[in-house]
């Protein structure tokens, strides 16, 4: 899973959210707002985007399951085909936005950009942006898709804030944070947001620092009992690379389907550089980052977002990897 944004690759924003949450409003903003980018859009819900543009392409969700249904080898065939055609016109756009259907699982879309050779070479995943309807999300809480769309997100727009009270918003935001501590959450009305906050985010860039809300780490208040949640580990000390490797590969093999995303910064024993990694389901990618600064406390920070994760077990197993 190498996704170092190279010169000449096209950044991709994946836009998810339930029908009616405000995806289309956001898309229309992206297409009309003067942000200096030429944006091509692949839409899955026809007829909503009200703007005439040659680079709005329709695609129907087609799941390609390969390797006997291995979850990380599940990709979106329609995207491979349509983007393959679209890349012949790459001088016509410099950013690609993919809208998924309200009921789509974001994982195959994300995986397409890591698994398929053409997608890897020509594009780089910028961020997953999820629009949440602050008023109606409660009707969908139990749906897997709604939880996954939040869990996979790098940026969450808590939209339609004008339709709910501040107390409700607070509660909702806490709940979302407990599911996904990596995402940036913005409160919006009519999906009004700075384009810089959703385009060019570089969330999948390994060298972008892991940003975990420090409050989350202190909080023991994971009062909501969602099956989907975030687990953050912060440990001082140096990691034995071999042990870590063995643990991670075992973990991904046994729990890959339940681990949606993970990210981390590690202090490997005997290394002067920080080691950064990320993963989506069973796809994993890591590389040395910048050197630790002299005054910087050397520590390990890991974040897992997934379903039915056992925090105690993860902590224990990670500690066993320390020297």
């Amino acid at each position, binding site marked *: 899973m190498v996704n170092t944004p190279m010169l000449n690759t096209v950044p991709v924003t994946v836009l998810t959210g339930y029908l009616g949450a405000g995806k289309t409003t956001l898309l229309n903003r992206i297409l009309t707002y003067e942000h200096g980018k030429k944006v091509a859009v692949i839409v899955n819900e026809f007829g909503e985007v009200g703007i005439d543009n*040659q680079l709005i392409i329709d695609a129907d969700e087609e799941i390609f399951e390969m390797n006997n249904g291995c979850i990380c080898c599940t990709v979106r065939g*329609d995207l491979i085909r349509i983007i393959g055609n679209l890349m*012949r016109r790459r001088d016509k756009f410099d950013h690609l936005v993919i809208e998924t259907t309200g009921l789509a699982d974001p994982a195959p879309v994300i995986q397409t950009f890591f698994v398929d050779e053409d997608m890897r070479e020509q594009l780089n995943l910028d961020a997953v942006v999820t629009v949440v309807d602050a008023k109606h999300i409660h009707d969908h809480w139990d749906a897997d898709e709604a939880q996954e769309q939040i869990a996979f997100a790098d940026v969450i727009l808590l939209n339609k804030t004008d339709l709910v009270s501040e107390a409700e918003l607070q509660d909702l935001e806490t709940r979302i944070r407990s599911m996904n501590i990596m995402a940036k959450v913005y409160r919006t009305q009519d999906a009004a947001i700075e384009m810089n906050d959703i385009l060019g985010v570089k969330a999948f860039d390994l060298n972008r620092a892991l940003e975990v809300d420090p409050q989350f780490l202190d909080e023991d208040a994971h009062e909501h009992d969602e099956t989907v949640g975030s687990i953050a580990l912060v440990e001082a000390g140096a990691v034995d690379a071999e042990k870590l490797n063995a643990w991670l590969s075992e973990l991904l093999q046994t729990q890959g389907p339940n681990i949606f995303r993970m990210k981390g910064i590690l202090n490997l024993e005997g290394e002067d550089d920080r080691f950064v990694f990320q993963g989506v389901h069973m796809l994993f990618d890591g590389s040395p980052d910048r050197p630790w600064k002299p005054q910087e406390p050397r520590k390990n920070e890991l974040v897992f977002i997934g379903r039915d994760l056992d925090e105690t077990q993860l902590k224990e197993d990670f500690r066993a990897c320390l020297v």
Partner: protein
Amino acid sequence: MSGLRKFSLKQARRGQLRDYGTALAWTPDGAQVAMASAAGEIVLISLDGAPQQVLQEADGQSIDVLAMSPDGQFLAAGGQAGTLLIWRLGESPELISRLDNPRTWLDHLAWHPQRNELAMGLGSYVQIWDADAAEVVTTVMFESSSVLDLAWHPEGTQLAAGGHQGIKVWNCQDWDEDPQIYELPTVSVCLAWSANGEYLASGNMDRTLVVWAMGNPYPWQMQGFPGKVRDLAWSEFWLGEAPLLASSSREGIVIWHKHQNDDQGWNPQVLELHNARVSAIAFQPQTQLLASASEDGSICLWADAIEVVQLLDGAEAGFSALAWNPSGTALAALGQAGDWLLWQQRRPKTGFF
């Protein structure tokens, strides 16, 4: 063979399209070639240097596929807009059909080898259009994904469509009959029937190549490719057990020679010279000479599909497509920056032969 008649090509014409060159189709007499680009223009170029005919001006909507009917009467085109366009060629080409397929990127068209029937991939369906009668013959469902490639059996008795989970083959005598299924645990990216109709090959996303012999349900599977198997070409002419099968994956080409003994399968021979992705491969009709175009900006001509006898260039941004005329006397190629080039066989010197 190659020793007797030294083959070489000479540049005959060149020109420029408005954007990435996407598709090529020669007329059956080999005198003209139709070309299309990602900007949407379609032009007809004559080998003899006559002025080009513009069938469609660039309108910003990509044209991605062209197909010439075997009798040379019709040229079909499709692309981003989903509209199927059919011209009747002649002194002044005339647009006779314009069929809209909204929400569809039309990227696969194939004419029946004898009749003026055109197969087109419309999402997960295949539709057959009768150009003489100007009506739909039938619509069949591929079902498991969009159609990623289409090919008629050379005798025109069957139609194959490939995609996720393999290939489906319909019997043209009875379209309502269930198609024969050539199942794969992966995605068929490209497919090709051998010219004698005895073999059907599928290049796959999981870096394999699968070949079926007609009448035998157990295919051969070839592995070890560096990436998806993107393009396939069978030789029309061959000296060994079976036609040669050329396959491309990333910058490599592999030629497959069938072993005498079926159990031994096919022997690979790797052709290495390109240093960027191979974008198209095609055997010269009636010989074993293979032309390969690459994004590295070169075209290699491999005599007997073994050694390079000529290198062609002219598309600095890389080549995107290539096609021989039906007699094999001329080669056309398109570039990613819209350049087009035509080469012609040098006239053989008068003398011994």
